[in-house]
């Protein structure tokens, strides 16, 4: 195979689907043959059936709704504060010098380690779930946005100055629009991480949500339900990723040109 030779769009889709097929086939082979005991791993068919039961009889759709709401809620709050702070840090070096060391420290604090504290402070209600997502995504967002904005091409900055731009409009008309596509990419990536935090938050002290269903199923050794829950998370993650990508392409056509 020749390195870096592109594949046609059709072949790309076919190859991508093929792996899912191989994956499910291997899983089927391992479970239907009885090679792996049902206690440890349910087969795909049982998984789908109990997924249907979960959705139709046990109100799992509501759990999914709760989880999505928590992720989006916590993430939107984090992004709403991280955006202006990140831009300010990227553009103004004293602001960066003030916040950067702390943010760099804070981003290594694992969000899940805060759960006991957050339960103490905020109880086991929604505020605690949102807080976990917030802690998990906020510091990452701030730092990555600051770096992106700080990496504004210097020659564009100089060009803007020679065209009469002032300091304020340099930020608004050069640094922010120039960094926007990469910031959108950052948001897309960190949203993916937020998904892992929400499940952890729901594993402990929750009465609804996908993570809650998974812990309940654990007590019943219902591996079919656990796997269904995990797959639902994967599918939602994939969908949100695709939506984000499509939105980015529409919002920033200039960045995708010639790529």
């Amino acid at each position, binding site marked *: 195979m020749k390195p870096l030779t592109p594949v046609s769009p059709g072949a790309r889709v076919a190859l991508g689907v093929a792996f899912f097929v191989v994956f499910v086939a291997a899983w089927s082979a391992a479970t239907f043959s009885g090679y792996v005991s049902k206690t440890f791993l349910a087969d795909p068919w049982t998984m789908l059936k109990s997924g249907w039961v979960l959705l139709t009889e046990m109100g799992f759709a509501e759990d999914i709704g709760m989880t999505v709401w928590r992720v989006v809620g916590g993430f939107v709050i984090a992004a709403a504060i991280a955006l202006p702070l990140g831009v300010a840090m990227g553009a103004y070096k004293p602001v960066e010098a003030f916040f950067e060391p702390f943010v760099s420290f804070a981003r290594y604090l694992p969000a899940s380690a805060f759960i006991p504290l957050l339960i103490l402070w905020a109880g086991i209600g929604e505020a605690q779930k949102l807080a976990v997502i917030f802690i998990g995504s906020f510091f990452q967002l701030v730092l990555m946005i600051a770096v992106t904005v700080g990496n504004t091409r210097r020659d564009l900055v100089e060009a803007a100055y020679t065209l*009469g731009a002032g300091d304020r409009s340099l930020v608004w008309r050069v640094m922010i*629009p120039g960094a926007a596509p990469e910031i959108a990419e950052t948001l897309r990536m960190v949203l993916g991480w937020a998904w892992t935090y929400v499940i952890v938050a729901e594993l402990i002290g929750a009465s609804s949500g996908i993570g809650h269903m998974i812990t309940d199923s654990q007590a019943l050794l219902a591996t079919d339900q656990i796997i269904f829950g995990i797959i639902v998370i994967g599918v939602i993650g994939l969908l949100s990723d695709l939506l984000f990508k499509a939105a980015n392409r529409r919002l920033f056509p*200039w960045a995708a*040109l010639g790529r």
Partner: protein
Amino acid sequence: MNPILQIRGVERRFAGAGGGTLALQATDLAVAENDFVTILGPSGCGKSTLLRIVAGLDQPTAGEVLLDGQRISGPGADRGMVFQSYTLFPWLNVLDNVCFGLRERGLPRAQQLEIAHGFIAQVGLAGFEAHYPKQLSGGMQQRTAIARALANSPRMLLMDEPFGALDHQTRELMQELLLGIWEAERKTVLFVTHDIDEAVFMASRVVVMSARPGRIKLDRTVDLPHPRHYSVKTTPAFAALKAELTESVREEVRRAQAER
């Protein structure tokens, strides 16, 4: 007539070990209104540094630059600049790139568009208004950059090897285009290049800079008649001037290499 631009004893020293590097030695230059001055010199002679100081993007360690008698302290819309690198804003199409400075001045949109369309047509890009920079060739990007600088109606135009990244044929066409614009508008231009043909063809005056530390070693008026056709490059007068400048620049390149 009073010069539009006065460079007085401008010196630039870059910080570093052993007192740093002297990039530009006390330089004096006066540019008259409507002049097209090309600054010629080997690479690393400080000619771009000098231009950047005039643009206000770099500060001299000594001396001063006066534009219309006013001391320059920073960049401003009165000195339009075209860079060697492609500096169009990638998120703006051709039209909005050309409008950038006009919008900055707070002009009403209708007026911005009127001015921008005029300059886009002048650089031969009518019909490309909605294109993004990535969809344009290098020559088209630099033409847009020229239109963007001119749209601001600056007192003078500063050009830092604007055609340096272009292929030879495109470069010659761009020279004719720019010269045509200059012949029509008589905008004062300060143009840095290391291409001797380019320097002579475009200029009403050529200034040669020495190897580092840069200083002006030769100052020649170019009397070739206007409007200039590219065929002027084969005339004896052009050849004679080119020969003299080539000799002068060569000597500097030699010296620079000997010092390395």
